[in-house]
């Protein structure tokens, strides 16, 4: 009754005009259709849908409005809600049936109601609700004019008043901006401070006493350049810069997060990155290899192995491999790969476009699926025999002849070792059997007690040994030498475009999207043969000099590591809501030069650190601070706390304990006690537990220690837990730097810091006999500068009071001080 009245009133008020104004001839509604809509459809929509999907919604959900005909048909984030005549293809019906989405969320509507909607859509979804939704104000019409999407320019060097200050092109840009604002750069840092700064920035290690003395005494005008060249050429350079790169990878020596699966080949990617930085691999090649190394042409077997290893980039993040729904797992992995590559290389957050057009940036949903198509055509994991587990693909690496020879020899030795263990086991079992028999024969007579005990002792020892041999044989067989392998990806057999997945649901599919690039930054469409994934073409596009984002993003990342803040402060995000560049011309000039120099990161790093801008001290200036408190214009150097790796490596260096490793496996899987579940019948896959370490591991640089994703960093890597190490499931172009009490407690009370203090004091006592000399040495070692007079006085009275532990206590105090933890 009520609805009949509603209809009557409604017809009276609006019916006629609607029917004649906007509907096409085919859509003219009959009274019967109208009645059906008003009686069966509209009340349900009003009661169950409008709260979230209409103009009156407090917050519109899924961008879907169901209170207008147009918006209902157009749909929201997930696609067209109503396709007239096609109930099964209409998302609204799928959602009401709880097939893809589940709507309304509080509970499924009765079947009768769903049947009404099906019938209504079959009729052509006759709908009198005219009207247009107001255009959305939050979305820019077109973000294409945003600076980061414009071609990179090659601006000329600006002029400056103080022509004596610049040492390099960079300095003209920096000084020009300061002069524009009426500011002056502060004075230069003293030589000690500069050397400490550049040593930490380039190698993650403090300068040695010899290096300090050499540099301070070098009066050549090129002393700074010489120091830089020495640092850039050292192996420590790659060890430092590789770790910064790994922050963008989500690297860990663990597959996924569940059950401690070991990523036994992960270190090969890590070593690849170290070598890439040390060999100054052109950065565009570095990018191409990480996206599509398996598809690139290579000049040698070694280069091919390297190139395949590089694709570890795509799979060494936090891939969840224990999802029971494998199709869902696959689309989630694709998502991670899209997000990771676009964020690391392009500085964009494309992930939002998985479900809807990006709200701020000109990245339509179709662009996301255009890129996702490359990874959709790529295999990253395979289903194992165990339970619901998958694993990352281990790709075989090509071997040189020499490599094959070495492996054959290793296999032979390994087989011998196993044979020897088996032989020992056989003999031990036999002997044990004999002993069992003898013990039985002796019987329980008390007079034979001593003899029996002796035999029993030997037998028990043998039993223990047999148990140990069993474990070692299983372990040795599991880890037998094989063809070298590494984690990587490969193209699928039948590459294909991807279809839009509604809200990431692999079974709620929308349109197919041809593989392609971001339309805002490209007008090319790749031409692909049917057998190609297109990853190579994607890599070429990312690493192209014409890409407006890549070179800028890379240059800005490197700048940030050296100057503390990026020219664009949001280093991982160059989109519309990111920061504007503080020096846009400088950014473009650096990017242009970088590309011209063959994408050489060593040249770039060198040009930055020999600049005058890098040479300033970090002291305060009242006037400049008032005008530019955040130092965006670079009137002084930025001070920074060292990161976790630099703190630990510096502790090892100053206490004289640093062990120079050449890389290799991070996880000590060679110890059987560190490995579990290698028995193939287990439901869970092989896993690790780090109980035993190699003797030298506590002393290697932090980059060589295992990175664990799901637990606190273990053993010698513990310091990472305290000093803002990037969670290896996360992604951080710039790490957080925090100051929390756990750090203070660690510095003051942890056994690790105490041991370093002790080792440092022993070093002092060994290297200098007089207290005065020791103090000089201590300050030079730890703070990398001479001790000041008042500090000497203070230290001497400290030593007098502290008594026998004085030196250790003093060392402890110094390595817990801000000046050691900071790079000024």
């Amino acid at each position: 009754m009520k609805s009949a009245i509603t209809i009557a009133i409604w017809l009276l008020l609006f019916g006629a005009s609607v029917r004649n104004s906007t509907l096409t001839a085919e859509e003219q509604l009959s009274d019967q259709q109208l009645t059906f809509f008003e009686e069966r459809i509209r009340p349900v929509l009003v009661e169950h849908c409008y709260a979230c999907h209409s103009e009156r919604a407090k917050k519109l959900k899924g961008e879907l409005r169901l209170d207008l005909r147009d918006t209902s048909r157009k749909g929201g984030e997930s696609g067209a809600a109503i396709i007239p005549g096609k109930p099964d293809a209409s998302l609204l019906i799928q959602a009401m049936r709880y097939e893809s989405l589940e709507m309304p969320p509080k509970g499924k509507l009765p079947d009768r109601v769903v049947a009404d909607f099906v019938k209504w859509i079959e009729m052509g979804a006759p709908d009198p609700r005219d009207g247009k939704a107001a255009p959305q104000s939050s979305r820019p019409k077109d973000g294409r004019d945003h600076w980061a999407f414009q071609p990179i320019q090659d601006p000329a060097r600006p002029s400056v008043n103080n022509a004596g200050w610049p040492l390099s092109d960079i300095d003209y840009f920096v000084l020009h901006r300061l002069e524009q604002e009426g500011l002056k750069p502060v004075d230069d840092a003293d030589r000690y401070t500069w050397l400490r700064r550049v040593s930490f920035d380039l190698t993650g290690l403090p300068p040695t006493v010899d290096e300090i003395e050499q540099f301070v005494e070098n009066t050549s005008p090129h002393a700074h350049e010489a120091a830089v060249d020495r640092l850039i050429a050292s192996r420590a350079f790659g060890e430092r810069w590789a770790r910064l790169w790994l922050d963008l990878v989500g690297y860990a020596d663990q597959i996924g997060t569940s059950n401690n699966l070991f990523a036994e080949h992960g270190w090969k990617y890590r070593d690849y990155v170290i070598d890439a930085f040390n060999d100054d691999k052109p950065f565009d090649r570095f990018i191409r290899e990480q996206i599509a190394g398996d598809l690139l042409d290579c000049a040698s077997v070694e280069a091919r192995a390297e190139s395949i290893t590089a694709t570890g980039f795509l799979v060494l993040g936090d891939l969840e491999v224990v999802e029971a729904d494998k199709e869902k797992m696959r689309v989630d992995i694709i998502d991670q790969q899209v997000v990771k590559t676009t964020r690391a290389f392009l500085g964009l957050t494309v992930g939002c476009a998985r479900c809807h057009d990006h709200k701020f940036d000109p990245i339509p949903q179709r662009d996301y699926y255009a890129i996702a198509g490359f990874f959709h055509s790529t295999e990253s994991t395979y289903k194992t025999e165990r339970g619901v587990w998958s694993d990352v693909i281990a790709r075989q690496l090509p071997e040189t002849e020499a490599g094959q020879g070495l492996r054959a020899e290793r296999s032979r030795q390994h087989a011998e070792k196993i044979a020897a263990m088996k032989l020992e086991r056989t003999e031990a079992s036999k002997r044990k059997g004999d002993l069992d028999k003898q013990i039985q024969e002796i019987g329980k007579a008390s007079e034979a007690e001593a003899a029996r005990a002796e035999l029993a002792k030997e037998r028990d020892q043998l039993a223990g040994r047999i148990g140990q041999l069993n474990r070692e044989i299983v372990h040795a067989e599991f880890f037998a030498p094989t063809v070298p392998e590494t984690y990587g990806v490969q193209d699928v057999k039948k590459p294909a475009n991807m279809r839009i997945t509604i809200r990431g649901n692999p079974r709620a599919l929308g349109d197919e999207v041809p593989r392609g690039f971001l339309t805002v930054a490209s007008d090319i469409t790749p031409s692909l043969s049917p057998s190609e994934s297109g990853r190579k073409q994607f890599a070429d596009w990312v690493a192209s000099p014409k890409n407006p984002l890549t070179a800028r993003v890379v240059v800005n990342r490197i700048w940030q590591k050296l100057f503390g803040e990026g020219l664009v402060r949001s280093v991982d995000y160059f989109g519309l809501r990111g920061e504007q560049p503080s020096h846009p011309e400088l950014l473009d000039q650096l990017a242009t030069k970088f590309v011209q120099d063959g994408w050489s990161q060593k040249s770039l790093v060198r040009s930055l650190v020999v600049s005058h801008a890098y040479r300033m001290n970090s002291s305060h200036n009242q006037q400049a601070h008032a005008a530019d408190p955040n130092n965006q214009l670079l009137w002084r150097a930025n001070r920074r706390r060292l990161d976790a790796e630099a703190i630990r490596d510096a502790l090892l260096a100053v206490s004289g304990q640093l062990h120079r490793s050449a890389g290799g496996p991070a996880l000590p899987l060679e110890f059987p006690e560190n490995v579990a579940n290698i028995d193939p019948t287990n439901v869970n896959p092989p896993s690790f537990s780090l109980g035993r370490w190699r003797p030298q591991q506590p002393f290697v640089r932090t980059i060589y220690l295992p990175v664990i994703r799901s637990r606190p960093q273990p053993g010698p890597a513990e310091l990472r837990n305290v000093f803002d190490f990037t969670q290896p499931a996360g992604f951080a172009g710039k790490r957080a730097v925090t100051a929390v009490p756990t750090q203070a407690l660690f510095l003051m009370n942890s056994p690790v810091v105490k041991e370093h203090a002790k080792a440092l004091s022993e070093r002092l006592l060994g290297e200098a006999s007089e207290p005065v000399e020791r103090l000089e040495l201590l300050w030079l070692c730890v703070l990398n500068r001479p001790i000041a007079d008042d500090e000497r006085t203070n230290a001497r009275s400290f030593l007098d009071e502290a008594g026998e532990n004085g030196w250790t206590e003093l060392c402890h105090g110094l390595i817990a001080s801000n000046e050691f933890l900071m790079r000024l």
Partner: protein
Amino acid sequence: MSVMNQLPIFSRREALKAAACGFGGVALQGLTGSTARAATKTLAVHVPHHAAKAKRVIFLFMAGGPSQADLFDPKPFITKHHGQTIAAPVDDHQLRVGVEKFLAMGPVAPVRPRGESGMMISDLMPNIASVADDLCLLRGMYTDNKAHAPATLQLHTGTLAESLPSMGSWISYGLGTENDNLPSFITIHPPEDVRNYGSSFLRARHQGTPLNVPASEKASAIKYLQDPDTSAIDQRRRLDFVQHMNRKLLDRVETDAQMEGIIESFELAFRMQAETPRLVDLSGESQETLRLYGIDGKQADRNGRACLLARRMSEAGVRFVQVTMGGWDHHGNIRGALRGSCAGVDKPIGGLIKDLKRRGLLDETLVLWSGEFGRSPWSQDLSGTSPISTHGREHQQESFCTWMAGGGVKPGLTYGNTDDFGYRPIDGKVHLHDLHATMLHLLGLDHERLTPRHAGRDFRLTDIYGDVVREILA
């Protein structure tokens, strides 16, 4: 949104300069509540979005996935067909291990109506059953993954992978702290994966501080809280030296937020050194209270101490205290093992609710009890040949039970129902995102307005999801 902005935290320089005494002196001043203390208010209390029902949360995390079919949601259909193959309405997209026969398995012990509300609770948890009328049971919970690691992460952070702030961090971020001498988020016997108590892109002061019930007199509850091998005089001397060096450097550079922050963090560390042992020392609690929590050297002792500590921490103003209690992953022999798991938590949890209530704390404290998912109503047998009496149950993401108490939820309410199998919710469906939204709501926070920006995007605990479950609000 202005109330949610990060307050300037490093304003310590003046106070430090004014302090003529050494570093230790400053720390001590902090403890006695002088001006130094006011100046070090690092996590000031923020004004919430709307009137709050709860001020604090105690989250009891049942790691492993407790069996709701045995504890809270028995199904006559399943009991009737115990041991028989049933036509389970399962999702064909999921791989399965050990459940191929779909043998219905009834509850391992009777589940009965309790109290005036008639809430269904198992005989295995008599103490929790005795506070049934204080609980608000959600039987239509569901989540997005059935593996421990991702499901646990989603319960804590809303996401299945990645690294996003934990709910305790969100609450610390949203509300600040009530006690300057303690962290605002403490996690007792923390879950393995550090992300479950990490603050991700929120500042590290919002991260959970792990705490362990000290195993001995000498052990400390927080890692490196003490340096037991060094005399107090030597420790003080060391500190004063560090402080002296730090102050001189700060004088040299004149101003540096970072350095001031480090100096300040040392101060909080030393206030914690004084405060924490006092808080974890249970010797002042009465015998009756210890008994209430099951602290008797037997199977519930460890959890009892943890729950009592949680009450003490919460009482002292810690915003979010989590206690993790494991042992719920019953893939086999649930008949035997569930009894022990329940015995380990029943008194501690029942005791906690009673204790909070009698101290008048329950109204302003929201207690949340949850696993990362539930367990299947049919049995699991990994060997494929064992008798049903030795079977366990498989993980279940489609439905499980969670309960809340205090803090503005309807006491005695059973909300939501599952189908005849206890497999899918048929009404009162509550996703983890909805649970998070509701929890924030009770604390006076609007989950859609608590949106810090990071990497060009606004983040929420509930991502783009979540509805407040208004039906359960008191």
